[in-house]
């Protein structure tokens, strides 16, 4: 008995097989990279990371005693309103200085995802919306944020004044004669109760009751805590990934594309990263970030209005008394180029800072409010490139096939450092 298939069924099956092949069959790799591709690959290698940029606003940025003081402060829960929160609560060394949460949790729940800290000293702007123009100034804000550390300025200054070890270290780093006199007076909690211009109404009232001179002295010590914290964060090491080993192997034999440090899928993913997927437009350089601000139509967290992003962040940075041009900065105004020539305006509406793609395996969830839980979700987000709710989406749809999304993910996972980051300094030293 003969079986007969209708032409429609044959056509349907052929189309289904064709579509599946198109989605899941990998394209063959060319034998070798072009000269331009080789140059781009090397530009992404950790070997190309330049020396740490100077921080002219922080004269103790590379001071060994400031680094050590900063390390101790980073892990100290006394820098909080209830002695339970330290910087390391949200920036955990074992998670590459993130916390595994969508939104940071301190005394309350913040509205932003905790950013990793490795390589942070290379960014001219801090926070997702760039509302701080230096690492030392950034370090100050969470200390007084009521849902993060919830501390206040005089409380922090009192801790330095009263704790023998901190006091000795502080005076060794910031050794002005006046520092000792200042610390002596601020140790008196009756005369200088909890006070902060950003605190609760009672603390704000207490702040307003202080003389201008006392406010400035407290601000000076407060800003110096930020400078010590920044000095330590500048020392956090960046560890090479499988991709970096691959780039090194290519330097020896640029004519051979296949190397044992990356799989075929990862190499294909690298090709997509530099080409069709367009990731390299913003994720460029050895840290896989241009540290600039882009609107890529990331939806706000459920029930939350879309974030204004950099358009607001820059206004805040310009008005910040702790910015590069402020009296607590050690920089000459001519050195504050980032602040002087920063660009804001409507184009920056909804724009957030480009994150580094190194160590993504340890830093999920992703985006400014942790909206995307997995790398698959992130790749899908850029593949679709939907219309932005506010501003305009700079990204365009990518039309990545299923196999290409898998390869791109494989490449992103080749950017991870060691799974056990025991090389990071910790509380015990």
């Amino acid at each position: 008995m003969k079986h007969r298939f209708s032409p429609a069924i044959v056509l349907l099956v052929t189309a289904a097989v064709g579509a599946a092949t198109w989605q899941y069959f990998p394209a063959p790799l060319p034998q070798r990279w072009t000269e331009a591709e080789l140059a781009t690959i090397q530009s992404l290698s950790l070997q190309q990371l330049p020396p740490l940029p100077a921080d002219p606003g922080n004269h103790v940025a590379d001071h060994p005693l400031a680094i050590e003081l900063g390390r101790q402060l980073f892990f100290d829960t006394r820098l909080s309103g209830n002695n339970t929160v330290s910087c390391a609560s949200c920036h955990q060394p074992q998670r590459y200085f993130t916390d595994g949460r969508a939104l940071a949790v301190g005394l309350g729940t913040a509205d932003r995802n905790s950013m990793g800290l490795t390589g942070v000293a290379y960014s001219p702007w801090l926070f997702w919306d760039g509302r701080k123009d230096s690492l030392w100034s950034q370090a100050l804000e969470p200390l007084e944020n009521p849902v993060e550390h919830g501390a206040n300025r005089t409380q922090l200054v009192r801790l330095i004044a009263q704790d023998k070890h901190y006091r000795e270290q502080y005076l060794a780093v910031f050794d002005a004669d006046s520092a000792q006199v200042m610390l002596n007076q601020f140790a008196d909690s009756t005369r200088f109760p909890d006070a902060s211009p950003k605190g609760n109404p009672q603390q704000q009232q207490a702040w307003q009751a202080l003389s201008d001179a006392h406010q400035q002295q407290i601000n000076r010590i407060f800003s110096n805590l930020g400078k010590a914290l920044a000095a330590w964060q500048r020392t956090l090491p960046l560890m090479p990934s499988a991709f970096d080993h691959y780039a090194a192997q290519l330097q020896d034999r640029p004519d051979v594309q296949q190397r044992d440090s990356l799989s075929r899928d990862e190499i294909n993913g690298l090709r997509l990263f530099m080409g069709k997927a367009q990731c390299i437009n913003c994720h460029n350089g050895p840290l896989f970030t241009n540290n600039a601000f882009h609107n890529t139509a990331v939806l706000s967290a459920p029930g939350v209005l879309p974030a204004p992003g950099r358009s607001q962040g820059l206004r805040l940075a310009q008005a910040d008394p702790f910015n590069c041009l402020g009296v607590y900065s050690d920089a000459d105004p001519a050195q504050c180029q980032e602040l002087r020539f920063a660009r804001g305006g409507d184009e920056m509406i909804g724009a957030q800072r480009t994150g580094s793609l190194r160590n993504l395996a340890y830093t999920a969830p992703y985006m400014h409010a942790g909206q995307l839980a997995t790398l698959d979700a992130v790749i899908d987000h850029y593949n679709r490139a939907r219309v932005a709710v506010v501003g305009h989406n700079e990204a365009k749809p990518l039309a990545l096939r299923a196999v290409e999304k898998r390869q791109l993910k494989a490449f992103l996972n080749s950017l991870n450092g060691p799974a056990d980051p025991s090389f990071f300094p910790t509380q015990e030293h």
Partner: protein
Amino acid sequence: MTSRLLMLLIVLLTSGINPVSAQPTQTRSDPAGLHIVLHSQVSPIPLNQMHSWIIEIQPDPPIASNSLWESAVIRVSGGMPTHNHGLATSPQVTDYLGDGRFLLEGVRFHMAGVWILQLQIQLDNRHYTAQVELTI
């Protein structure tokens, strides 16, 4: 010492994405009358690094009056047409250096690709525009 110099040479030769040598970029104004030459002060033109340029303006006929030069107003804007966004920064002309040369500070390119720089020039009570295309 030799190895350090060698390392420095390797870093300089390999840094950035497809480094573009900073050859002066030339253009003419609209309306005609100005020949404009732009020189990056860092070569190759860097990615993700704040740097300065010199804008050299050569009028035809030449202008001899220093006060006319010093009262010139130059504004610079631009962006990446293919990505539909402007410059990453707001560069500004901050100094007149003499001989029709101006210092442009605050330039940073944060993506590789084709960039447009647009100049609006007010010189001797005349308004000019000019544009150059750069591939970073």
